[in-house]
């Protein structure tokens, strides 16, 4: 092994290449990537914030319009992270261009960092755009901006990893859409984006506590308003657990070459 190869234990060039290649795709589809979430967020505010929200009492002293902002952002970040990352790795697999990644002098970790990094970056950007859009409709302050950003980044990273796993697991377009549709959408809608779980009857409140999205939304909402359904520590811990599970699955996938190398 030459001296240069020894020093170059992390292939930064390769990570950069994957990251910017993926981001370039994002730029090319900038219009869909940005306009559609901005539009749908605006619609949410017109319907929930203005039309219905004016008839709903403030929750914990926060107006309903403002109350749904963190949940809405989380909803989009979550779904976009999954779809960005799952498509990013599914597509090369589907089109056959994955051969290049597999034959390149890169470690699995570098591949994951490149793809997941790009997918997470996109959805973080998206979250911030939705935040700015929401600010046009309702006024609110962010109590803990640093925590807010941390939750955003953590969620984007975790669910991009999750999306990456789905993209590797999926061997057809149906499967690629199955998980987001059948599992993620219900979980996000029942995750307390549009209500406080205190508003639910006790039985359902208990059921809800098995929904990981509840912890994300709750923690994220706390960073805005300083109030939460479950404790912030628990929110962080649950997100951490999910992140850890995803990392473990990815480690296993790459160790065994599952659905990548025959």
């Amino acid at each position, binding site marked *: *092994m*030459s001296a240069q190869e020894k020093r*170059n234990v992390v*292939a930064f060039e390769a990570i950069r290449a*994957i990251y910017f290649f993926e981001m370039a795709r994002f730029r*090319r589809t900038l219009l869909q990537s940005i306009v559609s979430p901005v539009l749908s967020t605006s619609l949410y505010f017109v319907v929930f914030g203005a039309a219905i929200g004016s008839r709903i009492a403030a929750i914990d002293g926060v107006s309903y319009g403002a109350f749904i902002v963190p949940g809405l952002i989380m909803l989009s970040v979550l779904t976009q992270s999954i779809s960005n990352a799952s498509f990013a790795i599914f597509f090369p697999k589907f*089109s*056959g261009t994955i051969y290049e990644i597999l*034959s390149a*002098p890169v470690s699995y970790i570098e591949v994951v960092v490149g793809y997941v990094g790009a997918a997470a970056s996109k959805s973080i950007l998206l979250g911030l755009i939705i935040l700015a859009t929401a600010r046009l409709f309702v006024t609110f302050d962010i109590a803990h901006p640093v925590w807010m950003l941390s939750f955003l980044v953590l969620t984007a990273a975790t669910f991009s990893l999750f999306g990456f796993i789905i993209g590797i697991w999926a061997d057809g377009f149906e499967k690629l859409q199955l998980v987001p549709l059948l599992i993620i959408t219900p979980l996000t809608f029942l995750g307390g984006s549009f209500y406080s779980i205190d508003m639910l009857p006790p039985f359902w409140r208990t059921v809800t506590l098995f929904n990981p999205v509840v912890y994300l939304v709750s923690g994220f909402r706390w960073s805005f308003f300083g109030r939460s359904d479950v404790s912030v520590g628990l929110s962080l811990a649950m997100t951490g657990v999910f992140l850890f599970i995803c990392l473990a699955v990815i480690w296993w996938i790459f160790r065994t070459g599952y659905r990548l190398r025959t």
Partner: protein
Amino acid sequence: MPPIISICNLTKTYASGFQALKGINLEIHSGEIFALLGPNGAGKTTLINIVCGIVNPTGGFVLADGHDVVRDYRAARSRIGLVPQELSSNAFDTVWAGVTFSRGLFGKPADKPYLEKVLKDLSLWDKKNSPMMTLSGGMKRRVMIAKALSHEPQILFLDEPTAGVDVELRRDMWEMVRSLRARGVTIILTTHYIEEAEQMADRIGVINKGELILVEEKSALMKKLGKKQLTVQLQHALTSVPAGLAGHQVELSADGEELIYTFDPRSGEKGIASLMKQLSELGIEFKDLQTNQSSLEEIFVSLVRAAP
């Protein structure tokens, strides 16, 4: 000089239980053009994919420039460029984006003049900003070659580079392969066009049903197995082979207008000169002479047939 690639007892059994490679041993010399021949399903692509890191081997090992392709994959793969058999491309990405990506992926710092030269050599420069989906099949194939060359590999694998490629482009590719070899790049190619191997390769390997049945210098192979034929076009048709020629392996064509003499140039047979002498002694006049050597194709077909 140590071999640039050493393949040792390599086996591959796919998940389906199918054994695609049954203990391959092969050494590729630095700087040579090695042609791997074999019928469909022989295991050519499997072998290449293992060396390049796309398929995991079941047993045995491969060293590329002294580096184990599994344990020391980084060093091994950074030396290898691959043009796979199947065409694949990201439809919306431009040619330029594709080659810059490939170069970066292999850890090489950006080098526009070099990539420009690669694209120009492959007549792709005017297409550099075209999305892949707007290119023809032959152009896509060239882009895949450009991607493989983008990171300046020492070893280049071409898995059926000329399948579905027109005559002109095939010539260009041969030209390119030769100029790469002149720069010291080792080239391993598979092909079903035997004349291609015949024209290009320094050495030839024949693989059949997962076993390497022959590896030989091309010229030695041609000599060893290549029979020569002399066709004598007669002035006057004959009805049977004259008795005086019985000592030679001579046949008469159906119409009686040609005598066909088959001989092995390396065997101790009396050869053309003595045949000619006898023809003139017998007073047989002829219009023309033709010799030809059996092609690699014929050699190859007979080899594969003979294999169990």
